[in-house]
């Protein structure tokens, strides 16, 4: 692991770098109809991420009281750190792969997530490409 392999809350600090600015035309074309608020969890740290027309409009860090959201995606700090590293190991490189190995959990109303799965896979992996450390 490189760059995103940090201790504890440092990985959580990369959550605001999750965005869609770097998306290639294929993924950008699949963002127009994505509107959602979802909960994103790094270890014990919760974030509410708001999307409008595929753009991240807000990232708020918890803790929350009675948060409202469509679905929740959670994984450990180390899992996100490896996914966001420049060269994740095989099996730790993809959101669906993380599901297979029970390293990631998605629950709630998954319609928006599944109907736009290409988009969300790109969004959730985006800190690999958007952080200063990884760009360097």
């Amino acid at each position: 692991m490189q760059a995103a392999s940090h201790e504890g809350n440092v990985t959580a600090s990369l959550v605001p770098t999750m965005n869609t600015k770097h998306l290639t035309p294929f993924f950008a074309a699949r963002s127009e109809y994505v509107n959602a608020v979802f909960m994103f969890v790094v270890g014990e740290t919760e974030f509410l991420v708001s999307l409008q027309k595929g753009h991240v409009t807000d990232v708020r860090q918890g803790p929350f009281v009675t948060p409202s959201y469509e679905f929740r995606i959670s994984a450990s700090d180390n899992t996100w750190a490896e996914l966001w590293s420049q060269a994740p190991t095989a099996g730790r490189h993809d959101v669906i792969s993380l599901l297979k190995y029970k390293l990631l959990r998605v629950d709630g109303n998954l319609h928006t997530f599944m109907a736009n799965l290409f988009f969300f896979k790109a969004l959730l992996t985006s800190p690999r490409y958007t952080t200063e450390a990884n760009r360097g």
Partner: protein
Amino acid sequence: MADFEPIAGRYLNLEIDGVAQRIYVEEAGQGIPLICLHTAGSDSRQFRGVLNDTRITNRYRVIAFDLPWHGKSSPPAGWQNTEYRLTTNAYIRTIVAIADSLGLEKPVVMGCSIGGRIVLHLALHHPHRFGALIGLESAAHNEAHYDISWAHRPDVHGGEVCAALVSGAMGNDIPEADRWETLWHYMQGGPGIFKGDLFFYRLDGDLREDVAKIDTAQCPLYLLTGNYDYSASPADTMEVAKSVKGAHFTEMTGLGHFPMSEDPPRFIQQFLLPVLKKIETDVHERSTS
């Protein structure tokens, strides 16, 4: 002059289980018959590299067909009144019927994913019919890691979600053109076909109880699995290899669930050619002994 590839595609009319089917078959080469079986929800285009490689087609008659409901093999008449579900028995009978129809004697069968599973069933139930079996991304069982109903419902684009579900199961540094062609095939799958194939992959084709009964003395078994495959991981294939005495297992570093399609040159050069050479040598020794 037209730049045609050496692949010839034709339609084969035959009955399978009493149902008239029109099967699209591609062929190239001469020699030992090599039947290629595509993955769930895709079609025979996955074997374009194998069909075009003269190092193979100089010695093998490569045959790749689209399963009914896949690619250019349309569903049978009346399909609108049924729900597509691939079963173990139907899959076996389809392979045997096509091999018989083509008059193939002791063909080698190479299947990937669901094809990698069915070669294990062929090894168990029909070893005498085949010269050798090659399982790509083979496992005796697949544990569900997502709800397959998402792959077929009117409010989710089936092609998009199927391709997105498998897009990560490929190597990290494969050619981008091959990565995206592989995904395009998934995007073109008919509605409900990937889901119907996974009925076999997840439920009906579960072979855990019987896999150890495979006798490789009757038919050699080669297993090749990419380390980027999370659907049938190297660990899953290793379980098969541990259970089946005499099975040959190779982990394919840098490849995933679609080795013949995601990086054909690397798959053929590093992993397939050595296996085909061994099979050819064995066939020659058997014919001279």
